Structures are given as C-alpha cells and as structure tokens.
C-alpha cells in the first residue's frame, strides 16, 4: 500500500453540540473547583479536560492516516438501485474507527434541461457512510445505495470525511474534493416479440436472429446469463443452481448481420397533430432511448452481432461497435445526455449511414411520422421509418419491473 500525500491535507476541527455541552460542564466544574476549593473537582476537571484533548488528538491522527476514494459502477441505468462505494485506506499503524463520509449527489443535467447550480446544491441528496473500523495498513470498502429516478448527468461530491472518536465531542474533518460525474443511461427494459416482428417486417435482409432450432423446451442453441427481458420460462434451473446466478436457454443464434437503429429525438408540439402525442412526445423519446439502452445492454451480454446505433438530436452522433474502441462507454454516455429537440439532425445520420458499406437498412425510431425532408432525401430508400406512439411502443418494449440489477456489492 503506497501512502499518498496525506500530511499536507488541511484538517478542520469542530466542536460538536455535545462537545459544547461538555465544555460548559467542564467550565462549571473548574469554576466550582476554584471557588469552593474542592480538590476532587480539580481531578474531575482535569480528567474531563484530558478526555477532550484526547478526543481531539485521536480523531485528528486517525483522520490524517485515512484516504478515501469513491468507486462508482460504470454502467448505471435509471431506476436501478446501485451501490455507491467508498474505499477507505488506513495508512497508519493503529486501527481507525468511526470514519464518517457524508457524500452528496446532485443532478447536473436532466433529460430535458440543465439544472442551475443554485437548485443543484439545494436539491442534492446526501448519503452517509459510516466505516466502523479498519485495521492498521488495511482497507475497507463500504457503500450506500442510490437510486437514480431519471436518466441524465449527475455529480457525486464533494464529500466530507470526518472522524469523531471515541466520544462525540470533537469532529475532525477534511473536504474530499474528488468529484465524480455520473452518466445515468435510460432505464433498461424488455424487448417484446413485437420488436422482433417489426424488424423482420421492415426488411427481409435484416436478420437479427436465426430461426429457432427446435420447438421443444430441451432443444436450444446455448445457455447464457439471464438478461433483463428474458422470460422466466427460459431459465435453465440446473445451470442456475450450478453457477449460482440465473442462466437462461437461448433458442436463437445471432446472425453476423448489422443491426442498425437510429433514434429521432423529435419533440415539437406545434408540428404534431395529435394532442395526445404532443403531450407525450418527450416521453416517447425517453422510451426510444430506453429501447436503445436495452439493445446496448444485450449487445454487452453477447457481442455476437454488429451494432450501429445513431442518436439524432441537435448534435447527432453515431456509434458503431467494432470501430469505436470504447463503443459501449461512449454510447452509454450519449444515451444519458441526449435531449429531444425541435430540429433533430436526422438527415446527417442518414448521410452518415449511407457512406458506410453496409447493405442493411437503417431503422429509425421516431416520435413523428416521416417528415417531408426525409421523404425527399435521395437515400430515403435505405431507411425504414418507424413512427412510434405510446401504443406502438407498448407492443415493442416494456420497462423492466425489477429495479435491482446485479451489481458489485460488498
């Protein structure tokens, strides 16, 4: 364990409310000892002073030998409860106790707007982590649980690391300035059979999956880990018992063809005829993004097919598995920060798709019908436009009912 530069870290000291009461009693006892000439009170006074001093020095020395860092899972989706972990290292030669970490998480950017800094600090949620004891030259990982209700960008930190030991009289603390930006992707859902049906309807060249090899329950292609959206009927209980985590039977083998999906994040109430759609356009965009997040998540599990995902908002981006070294991370971040717009640059996406050598069609999921500009586009034949309204999306995709996904929890 390499000791970092701990000694130069400024450490603050604060008298806790109980400490203030303690000091008041100490003053009272001392005054009584002096005024009434009671020697035993001098002993009491001395003992109390010593206790106060020792609390201060002990807390300070413990804190000086402490280093803490935040560990946040890479992949976070909205609606999931995840552990925010802190690794606390004890570089000292004696045990340290009662390390208290007061962390805070605030939203920087929601799915629709950027949060002003004043509101950001006011609405920050605070998590407390109490590390009860760490042996000398040892480390401990503790955590608290956080549930991100919506996708967006969040900021964790700064945190206050403090020690008040052995008595709640004096608190020594320092400000942990490490701030972590958390990108929360849309919630993962479950792809329904309607989704596969929709894909096969739009293009016969586009085969996202092969035909089933067998029709009975014992004839399957492979056994894989359970993913969100998998039916409980497909769980292979014997393997699950062996491995210790849910395994499911996979009846289909994925084709090497490219799955190309784009999201047209259009939300302009003026151009939508249906008032119901107008009201739910941003929500439809959110659901489309959730669908993409689910696709990404499934790709992460199998990585057996080529994937092209494009997101069209004011700053359109394309993400191609295999070309981008950190494809998943970039797409994850993009899913977290994408915002619906009046003028999504979907034309750019189509142009970019056609510059590639793929012979597949691009499936564009949109909250609107195909606009005129796309229809007039010379390469409009290379895209399949899927106008998604709330009813349509219910056939393709549904949100997962489980809010807990397997995470590294200690």
């Amino acid at each position, binding site marked *: 364990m390499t000791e970092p530069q701990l000694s130069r870290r400024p450490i603050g000291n604060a008298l806790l409310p109980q400490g203030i009461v303690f000091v008041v009693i100490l003053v009272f006892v001392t005054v009584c000892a002096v005024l009434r000439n009671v020697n035993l009170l001098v002993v009491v006074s001395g003992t109390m002073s010593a206790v106060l001093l020792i609390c201060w020095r002990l807390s300070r020395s413990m804190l000086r030998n402490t280093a803490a860092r935040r560990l946040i899972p890479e992949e976070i989706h909205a609606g999931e409860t995840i552990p925010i972990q802190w690794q606390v290292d004890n570089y000292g030669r004696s045990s340290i106790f*009662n390390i208290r970490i007061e962390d805070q998480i605030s939203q920087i950017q929601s799915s629709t707007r950027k949060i002003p800094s004043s509101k950001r600090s006011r609405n920050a949620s605070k998590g407390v982590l109490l590390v009860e004891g760490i042996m000398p030259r040892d480390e401990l990982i503790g955590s608290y649980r956080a549930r991100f209700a919506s996708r967006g960008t969040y900021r964790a930190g700064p945190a206050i690391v403090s020690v008040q030991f052995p008595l709640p009289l004096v608190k020594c603390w320092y400000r942990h300035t490490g701030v972590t930006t958390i990108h929360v992707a849309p919630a993962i859902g479950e792809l329904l059979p309607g989704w596969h049906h929709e894909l096969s309807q739009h293009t016969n060249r586009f085969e996202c999956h092969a035909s089933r090899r067998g029709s009975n329950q014992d004839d399957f292609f492979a056994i894989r880990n359970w993913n969100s959206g998998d039916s409980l009927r497909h769980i292979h209980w014997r393997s699950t018992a062996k491995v210790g985590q849910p395994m499911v039977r996979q009846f289909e083998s994925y084709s090497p063809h490219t799955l190309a999906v784009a999201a047209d994040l259009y939300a302009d109430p003026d151009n939508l005829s249906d008032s119901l759609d107008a009201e739910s356009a941003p929500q439809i965009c959110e659901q489309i993004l959730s669908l993409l997040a689910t696709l990404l998540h499934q790709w992460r599990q199998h990585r057996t097919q080529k994937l092209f995902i494009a997101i069209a908002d004011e700053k359109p981006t394309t993400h191609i598995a295999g070309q981008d070294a950190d494809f998943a991370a970039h797409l994850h971040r993009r899913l977290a920060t994408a915002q619906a717009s009046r003028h999504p640059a979907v034309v750019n996406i189509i142009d970019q798709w056609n510059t590639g050598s793929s012979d597949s069609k691009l499936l564009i999921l949109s909250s609107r019908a195909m606009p005129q500009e796309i229809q007039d586009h010379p390469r409009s034949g290379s895209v399949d436009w899927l106008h998604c309204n709330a009813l349509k999306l219910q056939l393709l995709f549904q949100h997962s009912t489980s809010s807990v996904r397997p995470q590294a929890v200690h």
Partner: protein
Amino acid sequence: MYSKQIHVQLAMLLLVCCSSFLLGVSIGDRTLVAISITGAVTAFVLVDRLRWIELSGWMANVVSIVVLVYTMRQFIGAGSAGKLVAVAYLLTYLLTVLMFQKKTPRLCWQLMVLSVLQTSLAAIFNLNFENGLIFVVYFVCALVAMILQNDFYEWSRIQSANERNQTASSQHPANFPVGIQSNLPGGKNLRSRMGVLWPWLIGCLAFAFLLFHSLPHTRQQNESALALDFSATGKSWQTDLDETGLVQLSNKLIFRAQFFDYETEKKLLLNNQPYFRGMAFNKLVFKDGKTSWTAPYDHVFDTFSYSKLTRMLPDDLRSLRGVRRAGVELIVEPTNDPLLFVPMPVYRKMNQELVPDFDRDLSALTRKRFRKSNQLTSFRYTVVTLVDSGNRTMPAWPYRSFIDDRPDVPMQTDSPEHAMLTAINAERYPQLVQTAQRVAAKYDGADRIELCQALLQQLSQSNGYSYTLDYRTVDRNLALDPVEDFFANHRSGHCAVFASSLVLMLRAVDIPARYVVGFHGGSYNNLTDCYVVHGRNAHAWVEAYIPPEQCTPEMFEKGMARGGGAWLTLDPTPPVYVENANDALDLARSIWQDYVISPDHNKPSFSGPGPLQAGSLADSWFASAFDYVIQTVKANAMVQATLVGLMVIFGLIIAFREMWPHRKDAKSAAVKNGVRQWLGQAISLVSAQLGDRIQYGRRRRADVKFYNRLEKILKQNLGLQRRPCQTQQEFAVEIGQRLVPLATDDFRDDQIARMLQTITSAFYQARFSSIPLDNHAITDIENQLQKFEQTLKQNHPSK
C-alpha cells in the same frame, strides 16, 4: 430498532445508579439513593425491557416542573449548602423522570449530562475512599456509555437521513431525482475500540494527576461552610452505664495519629499503646433509673472558657532530663464534633498556624465550631507531647489550677473542684466504698500513688474481674446501681464500668478522680507509620489527682508534675489485644483523604517532604524516584553519554523527517520490508506468532496471491486489466462476457464463468471475511488457474 440498544440502556442504568449513589452518600441521604436506584431499575424494566409504560414528552415536562417547584421550596431560604442540597435533590428527581422516557440518543445525552452534574456535586460535598473507588468506576462507565451513545447517535442520524431522503424522493421526485439509502451501522468493533482506548485512558488519568499535582491545593478545608446534619464521631455529652445487651463496636475511622521527634522530625515508634485523651467526666448522675457520667459538654459552644495552647509552650521543657519532645500530627475524619484527641501532656507546636483550644472547663482539647456549620472534611492539627527515653508516653501530666489556670497552685481541699471530684453517693455503692476504705486502711501512711495502685489492683483479673462486651450473658441485678452490681456481683463489664468503679473507689477514700474517655492504641500502619484509630478503640480510664507533696522527684524531672501536682493516669481495664492495620487499604484510604480530598500541604519539595502524612508519603515516593534517577544520571558518565547520544540520534531523525517528509520511495520501502521479512522469518523459528506479527504487522495480510495470478494471466494473455474504479466482482462479470468466445471444448464458457466466480468469491472471503481460506480451496484454485493459463496459451498464442 438499534441492535445494541440493550447495551445503551444498561450503560445508562449503571451510570445513573453510580452517580445517584455517589450524590446520596455524599450528602448523607440514603433515602435518596434508594429512591433513585429503585426508580432507575424500575424504569429499566418497565420502560426499556417490558415497554409497559413510557412517559411522553409533555408528561415528562409537567412532572419535571412539579419536581422543580418542589425542590425550589428547599432552595429558597437555604444557605449555600442547603441550596446545593436542593440542587442535588432536583438532579436526582429529574434523572428519575428522564429514565421513564424512551431512550433516544438525545435523552441518553441528557441523562449523561445530569449524571455528570450529580457527580460533580457529590465531589463538592465529600467522598471517602470507598466512594472514591465508585467515583472511578463511574468515570469508566461514563466513558463506555458515551461511546455507546455515540454509536446510537450515529445510527439515529443515518436512519433520520434515510427517512428524509425517502420522503423527499417519493414526494418530490422531480426535485430530488436521487433516492439514497445509507447502511445503518451495527455498533461493531466495540471491543476493538476499547482495546485502542486503554492506553489513552491511562494517559488521561496521568494528565489529570499531573494537573492536580501541579495546581495549588486548598489549605482551609477545616472551615467549610457546608451545613449538614453529619453524623457525629466520638462521644456525646454523657456516658450511660446501664448496659444490658451487646455493646456494639464501630469500625468507623475516627482519626489517624503519627508521632515524630520534635527536633529532628523523624518518625517515632512508641513502645507503648498511646492514650488519646478526649474529655473528662466529673459528675455521676442518677436519673430515670439510669446512672450516667456527665460533663458540661454544651459549654463548648460558648467561647468564654477557651484558652489557647499558647500558654503551654514546650520550649521551657527542653531542659528536662530523660524527656523527649514528640510531635503528634492528628487527622480527624470529617465530623462535627468539636472535641479533639491528644496524648497528655499536651503543648503547642511552635510556629503553627492552626492552634486548637484547651477548654479548662472540660479539661479537653477543642476546636471552634461555628454555629450550625459542620465539618465535611478532615481536620488536621499538630501538638507536642512528652515521651521518655524509652519512647513511652508519660503516665501523668501536670495539674493546672481550675481557678486561675496556674501550673504551680495545688488543688485546695476546700475548693469546689475538689468537692466535685470527690463527690460520691456512698449509699448507692456500699460494697465498693467498704472495699476502698478497707484498702485505704491497709495502706494507711503510704503515699497516694501507692494507694491508687492498690485500688487499681482490686479490679484485677486475680480478683475475678473480667472484660466483656456482651451483657446478655451477665447475671445483672437491675435493682442495684450498675457499678455496684459490677463491683460486688457479676464482675464482668467493659471499660466504662471498670473506670467508673475505680473513680468511685478513689473518691471513696477522698482522692479527687475523674472519668476520662478517649481512645487507646489503635492499629498501627507500617507503611504510613501512624496509628489508625477506629470507633472500636474508644476507651475509658481514670485520672487521679496527686498533690505536689505526693509526687515523686522523677515526676518533676520528667515534666509529669509541677507545683500544682499531677494527674495520674490509671487504667483498670484488663489489656486487650493489639491489632494490626490492613496496611495497603489503609494507606490507600490515607492517600485519598490526605492527598485528594483535603491536602493541606505546599507543593512537594524534593529536599524535605512534610512529615507524617500520607500525602507527603506519596510526594516523597515521587521525589525519591526522581532523585534516584537524577543521582544515577549524575553519577554515571556512561548513562549520560548514552542519553546524549540517544537525544542526538532522535533529533537527527526528527530533522531528517522534517526536511524530507515524503522521502519514502519504493527502494527504501523495499529495503525496510526486506529487513522486516528477514527478521520476522528469523523470529518465526522461535515464535511463529511473533514472527508473523513482525512480518505482516498487527494483522496478517490476506493471502490473495491466486487473484494476483489471475490478473497477471489475463493481462499477459488477453490484455485485460481491472480498472481502478472497478470492483473485483464487476471485473469478473466483464471478463466472463469477454471470455465466452474464447471457450474451447477443454475449457467451456460455463467452466470459465464458474472459475471466475469461484476465484472472486475466494478473494472476497480472504480479503474481507474473518474466515480464512483453507489450503484445499487454494490448491483447487491454483489448479484451475494453471489449466486456464494453458488453455489460453494454446489457443491464443499471439496474445
């Protein structure tokens, strides 16, 4: 619910019981102790355990206000001490009320604050040595209680924060998009925390001692203005002789006395049991069928009859041959009794600030007692007496005229004093008077001292007289006067009847005599070299007047007699056994009383600690230890050189560390670790445990070499590496997915996943669990890793 709540509740119960006991005992109110302890235990059972009742906040406030009003009645109009007592009652009642509420962290803190105030108040009053031990126990309890309360407080804070977060995120999800749930602490590691604390506790006590030792101590403890009904020690103004039951002996400590040579201040060990004389009783009265010795004890309240000991200077006794002046330092335990006890003859110690008075009316040494003010602390005084060359106290002391307080005027036979001291109702004591006159006739012509001795012999064991305290076995004739009955019939009794008989016999032959009470002997403490006198050492004896013409020349030479004659001490009671003190306990008690409660000495000087007190003894121990160290260092050049060398090396190390505070590069760390490893392995040959401790520090590091090997394999063969923000579990999940395409028939994907899961679980167990991995598991993992590595190398040689 907090998992350690029972610990907190027990700690609070113990704390409240301790502090209430201390306060109740210090103000002498056992009822208060009973009320508070009963209340606390009842509250613990009914409120904390059974949860049958619980005072709500407003109800507790109402009760507290009632208690406040009730105690304010005592507070208003009382003196300063009375006000403190009222506060003591208020604190105790409030604590009892608080105990009947639900124990929240806030309430626990309030309980602790009140109990500390209670203890402080108890310290203002008085705490004896035994209660001092409880005082120490209280502080340990308070410390543990505060640690437990700290945990409870943290738990409560986190739970409140969780509830707040849950409410905010559920009611205002747009404003609070992050719902946070913190893990509640379980109050673990209490034993470890206590283990860390004990050296700090010792430091804390040492600090308190140093502070106490270096601060100036109070010197006027004897004039404390606290007015309390404190149980009197010693005697009352009369002694009843009509005992019919068992005479109870008290073990209460009365005073301690230490003899020292007046010139050299060296401790003096007497060769006889000293008599510490209190008061003389002159008048025998018969009232309500009882016989009692009485004295004008109430006169002590008046100041008219006081005479300072200033007129009794020992300087003029310096020329006496065969006589030594002995200083006597006496420390009387807290009492409101104005009488003091001294060995006679008694003189004033020169240059003494505190001068006791001598009441001629009582013929006793006294101190002033302020009206309605009593002593709550010990009283210390020093007098001078005479001892002979054999270190024995004198059996007689000079008579001083009752009329004009002159030492050279004998008692006149027609004086009222003579009449009072020879008064006897002969009709009540026919047998006694007859015997005395018969003896006197036998010794007709002999001197008075011989006659006194002859009368004394009449009460000897050879004549069938025996000592007893159990009058239940004595065949008493209640129709007779108890003294006559003793003398003539049953001949068994305690010192009071022996002394009474002798006084009456002396008076029957017209010798002025009086009945004297005080203490005889006591247990001798070898550590403090002092006599520890308890209630059981109370004694009665006789003083007979010897006119100057009857005094022997030796009596004049030794200062036992002067021109006015002498008082001869006669003790007719058969001797009782001499006991030894429980030295260590008594020494601790002495140190507590002298050094903590009421030190009456200057700051310790190394040259000459004040003689004859336990506090000085403690000082002298420290002083002698310090002197020994200094002398050793001064005398030994090698020690000096070593010390200087160590200081220089220490200074250089400090300077080096200050100049290069972060010069801990990998090389020096490696060297240091290498040396430690080597040393640890060497010591392991002798002691495996100690060797391990040196090698691996206080706790042996978890053996996770198998996991390091897995990481190495993945990095070398596949270029996979765990990221800093990634936990081992996450890493396992990720590489499990990536390794699926690399599966072969020999090493299938489910086997890989299982292997990764096994290794990760084993890592967590070894790293964070208290259960170590067994060798079989490690071997199994090693085999799997080896197979895995071979598979990777065969199938992916390019990586």
